[in-house]
């Protein structure tokens, strides 16, 4: 790395170590109670200990499985439903009100009902993740399909493309950026829901791990759990961005924020 490149990456990233350094100083000088704000070294030790005894990986694996299952289900049904609503007026008329009225409603309130219907185990959490993620994914798939430039469809038709070809070669690629925007909105939602449902009533998963550790005043361990969730959320988001830029290579580098 040349000096200029090094200087550039320092000026780009300096704030992260700065914030961590402020944290460390606050924790070490005892300006904030040490128990409430453990030093980074203590947190790193807690992460290491939890990694070694397998706790962290065990709970992270459970949370990840739940989140991924619900998310995957929501992708399958959300994209199908969004496409169906965009293609069929009947589907549109039947489902559009459910989505536009239900969108701003916090579905998390239904969790107790889900517990009764699907039991206390993983299924109720997976179904709630599915429901919460379904909304942004469906709505974005719908608008994506609707927003495809008609000129492209006409051009394809004019060149003799069949309906099927138009769907796979024009409509779906045209809707793909919007579909991925929905996926990116839904991703943190899946993590929010899995963590909060595990905090409410569960004896496994990272949500449980964090709330148990902090209820037993082991704040360094709680921060280790938070760090695990942070790593998970960040990695999954990067993976999604990477996948999006591979699949939608013609729009690489375009602003990709989950704003809907």
């Amino acid at each position, binding site marked *: 790395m040349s000096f200029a490149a090094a200087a550039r990456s320092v000026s*780009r990233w300096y704030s*992260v170590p700065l914030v961590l350094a402020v944290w460390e100083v606050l924790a070490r000088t005892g300006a904030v109670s040490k128990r409430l704000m453990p030093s980074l070294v203590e947190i790193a030790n807690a992460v290491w200990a939890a990694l070694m005894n397998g706790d962290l990986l065990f709970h992270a694996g459970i949370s990840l499985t739940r989140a991924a299952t619900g998310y995957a289900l929501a992708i399958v049904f959300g994209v199908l439903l969004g496409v169906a609503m965009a293609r069929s007026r009947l589907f549109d008329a039947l489902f559009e009100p459910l989505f536009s009225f239900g*969108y*701003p409603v916090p579905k*998390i309130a239904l*969790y107790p009902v889900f517990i009764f219907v699907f039991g206390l185990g993983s299924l109720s959490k997976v179904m709630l993740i599915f429901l919460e993620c379904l909304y942004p994914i469906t709505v974005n798939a719908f608008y994506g399909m609707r927003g495809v430039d008609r000129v492209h469809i006409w051009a394809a038709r004019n060149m003799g493309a069949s309906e099927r070809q138009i769907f796979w070669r024009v409509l779906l690629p045209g809707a793909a950026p919007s579909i991925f925007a929905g996926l990116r909105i839904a991703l943190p939602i899946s993590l929010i829901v899995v963590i909060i449902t595990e905090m409410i009533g569960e004896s496994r998963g990272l949500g449980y791990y964090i709330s148990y550790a902090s209820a037993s005043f082991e704040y360094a361990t709680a921060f280790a759990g938070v760090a695990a969730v*942070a790593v998970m959320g960040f990695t999954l988001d990067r993976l999604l961005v990477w996948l999006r830029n591979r699949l939608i290579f013609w729009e690489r580098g375009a602003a990709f*924020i989950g704003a809907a």
Partner: protein
Amino acid sequence: MSAAAQPFSRRRRALLGLVLPLAAVVAWELRARAGGAPSYLIAPSVILATTWEMLVSGELWQHTRASLVRALGGYALGGACGIALGLLAGIARPVERFYDPIVSLTYPVPKIVVLPILIAWLGAGDASKIAVVTAAVFYPTFINSLYGAKGVNRLYVWSARNMGASPLRVFAKVILPAALPQVLTGLRIGLALAFIVTVAAEMQNSRGGLGHLIITAEDSLRFDLMYAAIIAIALIGFAGDRALLAARRRVLAGQTIGKEGGQ
């Protein structure tokens, strides 16, 4: 693809939209009346009666108010910080350089994870909930304000400056209006998050509030109470979103700048 042929009139469309929810409610009512249904499937008519009773007695309002204080308190704080810092970062490179890495690193992390730690710091009262809502609302408002301010057409800024506008005036008359649609988009995402996080936080640990009511009602098998609280949460979420949309229409009425991207 809608204008070409419209087989459904507006009225028919609205009726069709009612089909699924109505069918669900009727099926639910019949199932509950037929007896032998699981205990959590209370007839919708009973739920409505309980909701009405709780409305009249003021009990529902008491919990609703507790939730609203937390949700809107955090929303106001997080939204104000998010918009102020986001716009500032959008016009000042050093500010953007400071916040961008921190925000992009922590953005995909569900803010609710720090709730148990916030409870340890701030106690189990309103403060910890407001803090977690603030954090959750900050991100979408910050990011959208940042992109809104950054995305302002340079030509407008140059023209205004060329005509002798002071930096403050350029900000107030050009950048702010141009960024406004996206700022409002961030506020809309933030409002939905504020309600989700409030309910989630109340379910996890709190005294009072609709989320708390749901959990305690469920524990004591008072399913009618539970559904009444769920209805209240749904109505608040929905009404908040509609109010924001109405405000957006008013604020943006007649404005052309900042809308060329199409919204």
